[in-house]
């Protein structure tokens, strides 16, 4: 199904072919633009062609394989599957004929930037044209072979067949002939009627699945170059800090460590293996110039945002009721499973790079500049990416690897630790959103004002409805913490505010939130809303403690929405019971990949709404790994139903489309379930109970103090039972996951105090269970 994705193999093969052609008096016709290319000719003894190459996207070989080139990066979104699907469909090829190879970074492919949910929709027409051109030429080749009209032939599952007869020739058998034909002009090539597509309609599982589940798939971090050494880096302990002096005596004593190299804002440790490099970094003694951000913290950043909210403008005079609310969201890290890394092999006037990136051409220019070569002499192999989410637009890993490789004089694989990844990358900016809207006497919206203040680039946009008198106001607060694109970019913050606020307006108007949206929605959003209403049984009542919320949105040329169902138990623990996702993507290229993207968006949306946040202290992120920067686990993953609508006429992006409406739908569901409106993410900070005493759920005998606590929590038991026993303390988060557990011998008398150091826990609401024999004491504490 697919060729080894080790690009170096492919590169070597190409050089081999070029090498033969140069020495065998053959004619080599260069491939200049995507559609002017033709076959590589081999005028050797047999005067035969090895392959038919109608354009840069595909080659048909005599053994009947079709080698398709994927120019975009594979991040898990399915580019390496979708690309051959489009070409195979247009060519009428058998799917099993298709193999995919990864393109090197090369401007001949135009932009290879795999960001902004573009890879599918922006390549669709080009790839269709590439496949249709190949099919047209194969038909011409068969028609000429048989001496009949092209109109009497058609393509079918890897063959050209005589429509009214029984003759057929495989694509492979037509390579010799097709390779001699001129590439037809675009207007001579007819793309298929979309109703005749067979692969795009049903989609295909990820083409690399077999390699992934056998350990053969090659990610950036899996690159192995002969003679390669491993590098890790000591990163600045505050954003903007630089290296003053350092002592590497203990580092050099670690077996496997080779040397250290100082750069202006990091120190590289080079070793025989990654472990020694990491240990070497830990053993460094560095004096840092801490820079101007060393005392910066989240409270100061938040204040810089709220200070700029100011007074919002007035609403139109027909406003009968004014509604105002303020929302806030935190910084988010991308934390892809594969930590940032890059492998660089500098070989004099040439440099070879292996990397997982969304931005292969950016890596090419970054490395070129770091090692002092022109981009043309930097060969970038784009390996699979172990997740990206916007983080791999950045080329900081490649820059460091190139700088280190140049100094070290050996091939270098540089790997960030998880801590480096979370503390020294860039973030979705924190932001605060002040909204104000009016309703007239009949409950219609009179005007809408949204001021967003961002700790980064501002990006307030309008809700996806027809609303009069919209004013979007943008500002930025402190922006020294690096920020950048994060799945769905500013929609991730703005849609949370917009779609929560619409819900508040609906409730103020006394109208069902879904019906309220329907009353102001355009045609396509209405279709999404109606589908959500139907699929979620919206009008069917839920049990006490459960609730539903809805949110919809338009972006990346598509339309999407969610209904989330939650249950809040009487103690304030939350369970997401069911998520219904609906998207209208216009025309779906690979519904299987779309479903996966929508499922991933649900998990990302719920994780960031419920528990994930980056906070800043002393100029750097407080969080350093997956135990402090938390993500949903399998047990938290709710039932999901994904409905893909295809209203036709356009193709939308899907990687980000399904993210923005998850968090507002969830908060709207929480409101519906328990009457508490959560306006600040993550939700884990907000106790989801109205009864703070709650004698039913929390024990009188158990005191937790201070509450809220910072790092240490004291537990006191007011019982007079002095018999020896085993005490077990468990602390659960709002999802019910155990985040702390300790058992010890003791008794329950005398108001024993246990001091727990909980500095590892993220901020939020926690539930403490202390059990001794069959006695259970329960309490709730909030970590600041």
């Amino acid at each position, binding site marked *: 199904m697919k060729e080894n994705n080790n690009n170096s193999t492919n590169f070597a093969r190409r050089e081999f072919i070029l090498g033969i052609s140069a020495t065998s008096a053959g004619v080599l016709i260069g491939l200049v633009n995507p559609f002017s290319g033709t076959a590589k000719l081999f005028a050797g003894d047999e005067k035969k062609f090895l392959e038919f190459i109608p354009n840069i996207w595909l080659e048909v070989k005599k053994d009947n394989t079709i080698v398709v080139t994927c120019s975009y990066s594979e991040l898990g979104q399915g580019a390496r599957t979708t690309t051959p699907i489009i070409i195979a469909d247009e060519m009428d090829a058998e799917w099993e004929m298709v193999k995919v190879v990864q393109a090197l970074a090369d401007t001949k492919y135009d932009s290879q930037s795999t960001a902004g949910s573009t890879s599918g929709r922006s390549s669709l027409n080009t790839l269709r044209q590439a496949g249709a051109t190949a099919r047209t030429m194969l038909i011409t080749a068969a028609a000429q072979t048989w001496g009949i009209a092209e109109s009497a032939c058609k393509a079918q599952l890897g063959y050209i067949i005589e429509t009214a007869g029984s003759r057929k020739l495989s694509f492979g058998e037509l390579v010799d002939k097709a390779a001699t034909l001129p590439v037809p002009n675009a207007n001579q090539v007819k793309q298929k009627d979309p109703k005749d597509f067979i692969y795009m309609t049903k989609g295909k599982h990820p083409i690399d699945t077999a390699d992934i*589940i*056998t350990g053969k798939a090659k*990610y950036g971090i899996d690159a192995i170059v002969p003679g390669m050494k491993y590098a890790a880096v000591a990163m600045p302990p505050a954003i903007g800090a630089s290296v003053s002096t350092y002592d590497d005596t203990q580092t050099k004593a670690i077996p496997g460590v080779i040397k250290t190299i100082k750069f202006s804002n990091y120190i590289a440790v080079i070793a025989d293996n990654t472990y020694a490099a990491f240990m070497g970094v830990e053993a460094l003694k560095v004096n840092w110039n801490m820079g101007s951000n060393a005392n910066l913290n989240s409270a100061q950043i938040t204040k810089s945002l709220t200070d700029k909210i100011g007074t919002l403008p007035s609403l139109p005079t027909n406003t009968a009721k004014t509604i105002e609310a303020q929302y806030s969201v935190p910084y988010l890290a991308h934390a892809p499973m594969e930590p940032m890394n890059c492998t660089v092999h500098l070989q004099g006037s040439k440099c070879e790079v292996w990397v997982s990136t969304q931005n292969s051409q950016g890596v090419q220019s970054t490395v070129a500049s770091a090692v002092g070569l022109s981009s043309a002499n930097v060969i970038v192999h784009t390996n699979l990416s172990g997740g990206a989410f916007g983080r791999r637009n950045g080329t900081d890993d490649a820059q460091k690897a190139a700088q280190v490789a140049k100094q070290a004089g050996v091939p270098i694989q540089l790997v960030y*630790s998880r801590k480096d990844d979370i503390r020294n990358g860039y973030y979705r900016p924190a932001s605060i959103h002040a909204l104000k809207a009016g309703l007239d006497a009949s409950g219609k919206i009179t005007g809408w004002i949204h001021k967003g203040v961002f700790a980064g680039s501002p990006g307030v946009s309008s809700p996806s409805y027809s609303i009069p008198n919209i004013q979007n106001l943008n500002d930025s607060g402190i922006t020294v913490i690096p920020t950048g694109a994060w799945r769905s970019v500013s929609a991730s913050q703005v849609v949370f505010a917009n779609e929560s606020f619409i819900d508040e307006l609906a409730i103020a108007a006394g109208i069902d939130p879904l019906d309220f949206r329907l009353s102001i929605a355009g045609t396509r959003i209405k279709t999404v809303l109606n589908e959500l209403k139907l699929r979620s049984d919206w009008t069917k009542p839920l049990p006490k403690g459960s609730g539903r919320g809805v949110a919809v949105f338009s972006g990346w040329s598509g339309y999407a929405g969610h209904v989330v169902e939650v249950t809040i138990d009487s103690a304030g623990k939350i369970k997401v019971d069911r998520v219904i996702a609906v998207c209208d993507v216009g025309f779906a290229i690979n519904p299987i990949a779309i479903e996966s993207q929508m499922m991933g968006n649900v998990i990302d949306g719920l994780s960031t709404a419920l528990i994930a946040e980056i906070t800043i202290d002393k100029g750097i992120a407080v969080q350093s790994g*997956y135990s402090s920067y938390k993500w949903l*686990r399998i047990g938290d993953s709710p039932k999901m139903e994904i409905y893909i609508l295809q209203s036709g006429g356009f193709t939308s992006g899907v990687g980000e489309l399904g993210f923005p409406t998850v968090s507002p739908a969830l908060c709207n569901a929480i409101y519906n379930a328990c009457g508490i409106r959560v306006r600040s993410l993550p939700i884990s900070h907000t106790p989801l109970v109205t009864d703070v005493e709650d004698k039913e759920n929390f024990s009188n005998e158990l005191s937790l103090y201070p509450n809220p606590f910072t790092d240490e929590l004291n537990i006191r038991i007011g019982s007079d039972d002095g018999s020896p026993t085993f005490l077990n303390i468990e602390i659960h988060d709002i999802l019910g996951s155990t985040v702390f557990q300790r058992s010890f011998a003791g008794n329950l008398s005398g108001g024993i105090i246990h001091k727990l150091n909980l500095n590892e826990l993220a901020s939020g609401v926690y539930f403490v269970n202390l059990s001794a024999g069959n006695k259970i004491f329960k309490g709730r504490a909030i970590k600041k």
Partner: protein
Amino acid sequence: MNLNVNNTNYEVNVPSEMPLLWVLRDVLGLTGTKFGCGVGTCGSCVVLSGNEAIRSCSTPVSDCADKKIVTIEGLSNDMTHPLQIAWMQVGVPQCGYCQSGQIMSAAALLMTIPKPTDEDIDREMSSNICRCGTYNKIREAIHIAAIG
């Protein structure tokens, strides 16, 4: 020291405290086992030690001296392990980076609980993060493998 990985004996000359992960990846070139966090919180590096799922990033290689280690590369010779068949059938992966750890954790689960419930899966697989959100497909595939 001697290390048995995927039924092959290797003589490795590394510090005894070096985590198994880096011996597999950087010394033996078995890159199917992934580095995710280095501190045992994400599950990307899970391999089998006998019937037990272990986090190779936090297991000193010296602990593995008399064990039979199985990595994703050794789960089967020909992609015929029930979990691999089920993963193909469901098309579980997105980026795929966490999947070798997911599959090895699931392999250990099926050795102790051949027919796991959703609750068993959620409990035993709770230490494996998938940033792409393939959890529901992982659950589906484990059930298929358990039946098959």
